[in-house]
């Protein structure tokens, strides 16, 4: 399940809804990305997330489908916010539930790694020196590359 929204989200409530009444779930892994007040040596006062409505949902849905194909997931959720955010604010939530913990962990990392290189979002930071667009990081490409094989993962 995927959602793109301006509003904040409630990790506890989202996860509860995701796992409710499914005793096949043995492990639930979640990741929340937050706005930091620093980027390298520069302080960040606020951030704006721009996105490409339509393509964003399409890419997130594809990434989510891929995770379900690769791992034996009982449920998954991706929420990504857009708009203006302050330091400490939540940006993204990825949650995966599986009978086995290893599958939950791997699928969760896969989703956030792919999302960071495939989903059309762009961050603009407000610093004391003015606004600037965040540049893509090579380490994010490397993280996504780990999952480049199309083979089905072990359960």
């Amino acid at each position, binding site marked *: 399940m995927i959602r793109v929204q301006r509003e904040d989200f409630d990790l506890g409530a989202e996860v509860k809804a995701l796992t409710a009444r499914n005793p096949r779930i043995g492990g639930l892994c979640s990741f929340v990305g937050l706005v930091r007040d620093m980027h390298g040596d520069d302080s960040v006062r606020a951030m704006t997330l721009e996105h490409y409505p339509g393509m964003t949902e399409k890419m997130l849905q594809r990434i989510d489908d891929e995770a379900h194909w690769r791992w034996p997931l009982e449920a998954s959720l991706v929420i990504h916010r857009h708009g203006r955010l302050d330091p400490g604010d939540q940006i993204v939530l990825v949650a995966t539930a599986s009978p086995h913990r290893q599958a939950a962990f791997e699928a969760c990392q896969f989703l956030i790694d792919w999302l960071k290189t495939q989903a*059309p979002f762009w*961050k603009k930071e407000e610093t004391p020196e003015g606004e600037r667009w965040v*540049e893509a990081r090579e380490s994010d490409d490397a993280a996504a590359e780990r999952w480049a094989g199309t083979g089905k993962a072990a359960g």
Partner: protein
Amino acid sequence: MKVLYFAWLKTKTGVGEEELSPPAGVATVAQLLDWLEARSPGHGEALADRHAIRIAVNQEYARPGDPVKAGDEIALFPPVTGG
């Protein structure tokens, strides 16, 4: 054909979205970028470094040789930085 610009490509071109009818010779992504580059100094600046640009055709990532045609939705943007 609708052309969308995001992030600093929008800032540099000064436009978020434009409805265009390129001439018959514009049949690929690369040819479209060459044609767009000449539209204004802002377009020229935005499109100067092709390695810094990602392209989507009808909301799918595309490469320079991929075809473009009337009615397509083309988007130009920098490498993504969400998450």
